[in-house]
C-alpha cells in the first residue's frame, strides 16, 4: 500500500487542481483548460530536460532558458518567418521537422560548449556558469537585431506548424469553443512528452542510464571502474539541453511570436519550481509538477485581486513571483523529493 501512496497523493492533487479550475471559472472553462495544459506541457517538457541533468546525473543547470532559446531561434529562423522592426519576410525555409531537429542539435551543441569548461568543476560552479551563459545569450539575442529581430522579435512563423493541423482538430476546437491553433500545439506537446518519456524510460534502465546515476552517487567509483565520468556528464548535459530546445520551440509556437524577453532567467526558475514540486528524479514527476504549478500560478492571480483593488500587471506579476519563491523554498525545505520523487534518488550534497 505504501508503494502506491504517492500516486494516490498525485491523483488527489490533480483532482483538486482541476476541481479548483472548474469552480473558480464560470465561463470558458474549456479555453482555460487548453491554455493551462498547453503551457504546463511545455514547461513540463523543459522540466524533463532539467531532470535528466539534475535528477539523473546531479548537474545543477540554472540556464535552461538559453537552451530553450537557442532551440527556438534556430528552428524559427530556418522556417519561413518575418523579422524585426520592419517585418522583413523570409519566404523560403527548411521543412519544419528538419528545422526542429537542427534546433535541438543547436541546443545540444550549446550544452557541449558550456559543459566542456565546467563539468570538470564542482557542481555549484556549473550553477553560476549556466545562469551567466543564459544571460549572455539573452543579451546577445537582444542586441543583434539584424539576425534575431532584437526586441521586435520574429513573427509570422506559425503557419509551418498550423498547416499540418488535421481537419478534425479544427472541428473539435470549434465544437468546444477553444483556440484551434493552441489546441494543436497542446496536443503535439503532450504527444511529444509521452514519446520523450518512453525513450527516457528505456534509457534510464539501460547500462548508460545506470552509469549516469552512478556518476551522481559517486564519481570516483565510476572513474575507478574505467568509465569516463566527464564524457558521461557531457552526454547527459547535451541530451537534457536538446529536450530543453524542443520545449523552447513549442513555447515559440504557443506564443506565435518569438522575443528575447521570453527567455529571461525567471523562465528557468519557473521550470525548476515545477520540477521540484513534481519530484526530482522521477520520470513523470516534472510533467505532473508543471500542471499543478500552473494551477497554483493561476490561483495567485485571484489572490492578487484580493490584496489589491484592480491589481495592475505589476502587482499580478509581483504576487505571482512571491509565490513562486515561497513555493521553491517550502518544497525544498519540507518535501525535497516532491510529489513523485524518491528521497534516496535525490542529490542534495555536492562533495
Amino acid at each position, binding site marked *: 500500500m505504501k508503494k502506491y501512496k504517492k500516486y494516490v497523493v498525485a491523483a488527489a492533487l490533480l483532482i483538486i487542481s482541476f476541481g479548483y479550475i472548474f469552480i473558480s471559472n464560470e465561463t470558458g472553462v474549456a479555453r482555460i483548460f487548453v491554455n493551462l495544459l498547453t503551457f504546463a506541457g511545455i514547461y513540463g517538457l523543459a522540466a524533463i530536460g532539467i531532470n535528466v541533468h539534475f535528477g539523473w546525473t546531479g548537474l545543477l543547470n540554472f540556464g535552461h532558458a538559453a537552451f530553450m532559446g537557442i532551440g527556438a531561434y534556430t528552428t524559427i529562423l530556418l522556417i519561413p518567418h518575418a523579422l524585426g522592426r520592419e517585418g522583413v519576410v523570409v519566404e523560403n525555409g527548411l521543412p519544419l521537422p528538419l528545422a526542429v531537429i537542427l534546433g535541438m542539435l543547436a541546443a545540444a551543441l550549446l550544452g557541449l560548449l558550456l559543459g566542456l569548461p565546467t563539468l570538470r568543476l564542482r557542481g555549484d560552479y556549473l550553477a553560476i556558469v549556466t*545562469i551567466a551563459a543564459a544571460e549572455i545569450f539573452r543579451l546577445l539575442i537582444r542586441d543583434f537585431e539584424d539576425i534575431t529581430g532584437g526586441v521586435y522579435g520574429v513573427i509570422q512563423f506559425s503557419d509551418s506548424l498550423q498547416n499540418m493541423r488535421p481537419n478534425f482538430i479544427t472541428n473539435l476546437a470549434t465544437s468546444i469553443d477553444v483556440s484551434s491553433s493552441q489546441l494543436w500545439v497542446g496536443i503535439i506537446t503532450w504527444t511529444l512528452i509521452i514519446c520523450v518519456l518512453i525513450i527516457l524510460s528505456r534509457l534510464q534502465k539501460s547500462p548508460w542510464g545506470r552509469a549516469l546515476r552512478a556518476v551522481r552517487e559517486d564519481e570516483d567509483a565510476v572513474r575507478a571502474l574505467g568509465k569516463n565520468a566527464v564524457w558521461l556528464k557531457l552526454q547527459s548535459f547535451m541530451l537534457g539541453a536538446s529536450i530543453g530546445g524542443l520545449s523552447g520551440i513549442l513555447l515559440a509556437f504557443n506564443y506565435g511570436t518569438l522575443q528575447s524577453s521570453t527567455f529571461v532567467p525567471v523562465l528557468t*526558475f519557473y521550470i525548476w519550481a515545477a520540477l521540484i514540486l513534481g519530484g526530482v528524479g522521477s520520470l513523470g514527476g516534472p510533467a505532473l509538477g508543471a500542471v499543478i504549478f500552473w494551477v497554483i500560478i493561476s490561483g495567485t492571480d485571484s489572490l492578487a485581486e484580493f490584496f489589491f483593488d484592480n491589481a495592475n500587471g505589476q502587482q499580478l506579476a509581483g504576487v505571482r*513571483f*512571491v509565490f513562486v*519563491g515561497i513555493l521553491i523554498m517550502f518544497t525544498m*525545505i519540507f518535501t525535497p523529493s516532491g510529489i513523485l520523487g524518491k528521497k534516496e534518488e535525490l542529490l*542534495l*550534497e555536492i562533495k
Partner: protein
Amino acid sequence: MIEQLGNGLLLGLIVAIASVSLSLLYGVTRIVNFAHGEIIALGAVLALFFSSSPSSNFLYLDRYSPLGSSFIVSSIVSIFLCGIFGAILELCLFRPLRRYNYGNVAVLVITIGLSIFLRHVYLLFASARPASYPLDLQKRQDYFGVQLTPRNVQVLIIGSLVMILVGLFLSYTKTGKAMRAVRDSSELASVSGINSDYIITLTWIFSSMLAGFTGIIQGVINNVRWNMGFLILLLIFAGSILGGIGTSFGAMFGGFIIGMLVQLSVGLSFMDGHTEAKNAIALALMIIILLIRPQGIFGSKERIS
C-alpha cells in the same frame, strides 16, 4: 575609452566590495547565496524609503521620514537594518537548515527561492520605474583627466576607506581572524575553541551590512531599482570567480577588474550600439577564467573539484 574611466572606477569599487561580502559569506558558510543581490537591493531600497520626500512615488507605502530626510543618517540606519536582516536570515532559516543537515544543493535552491521572493516583495512595495535619492544634481568635473562629479569622488573615497577597513578587520582583529579560521577549516577552528555558530552569525551580519552599503552607493551613482540586486549579482559572481571564490583579497581584486572591464568595454569600437552586451563581456571572461584557471587568480586548487 578614457571617458569611461570614471564610471569604470565606480563600478569596479561597487563590484569589489560586493564580491568581498559574497566571497566571505561563501568561505565561512559554504553557501552559494543567490539572495545576496537582494540584500544589496534591500540597503538601497531602505535608504530610499527613509530619505525620500513624500512627493516621490517610489513606494506605495505611506511615507514617513522619521530621520528628517537626512540621507547620511538614513543610509547608516539602513546599513544596520541590513545587518539585522542578515542575522534574522541566519537564525531563522540557515541555522535550522544546518542543524538538520540540509545539503548544499538544497540550500542553494532555497537561496534562489529566497531571492525570487524578496525581489518581488520589493516590486510589490515599489514602482517598477527606477528612482533616485533626494540629492542635488552635480556636474562632472575633471580630476586628473578623469570625469567625475564631486559626489562620485566622495563615494570613491568612502568606498576605498571601507575596503581598507575590511582588509584590516579581516587581517588583524580577533573576530576577523576567527572568520578566516572557520573559512579554512571549521573543524580545526572548533578544536581551537572558536564558537563557529557565533562566527557564522557575525559573518552574516558583517556581509549583509557590506552588501547594504554596496546597494546604497550603487543607488547614489546610478539609481534604485527593485531588480538591481539580480542585475549586479552576476557581475559579483564573475568578480568572485575571477579572483578566486572564498578568498577575500582575491575577490576584491577580481571584482574591481570586472567592474572596470564592463564600463571600459562600452568605449570599444565594435561595441557601438550594443550597450546591453557590456555585461556579456564580463560573464564571458568568467567562463574563460574557469576554462584556464578554475580556482581563480588567487584561489587555491583544493576548492574546485
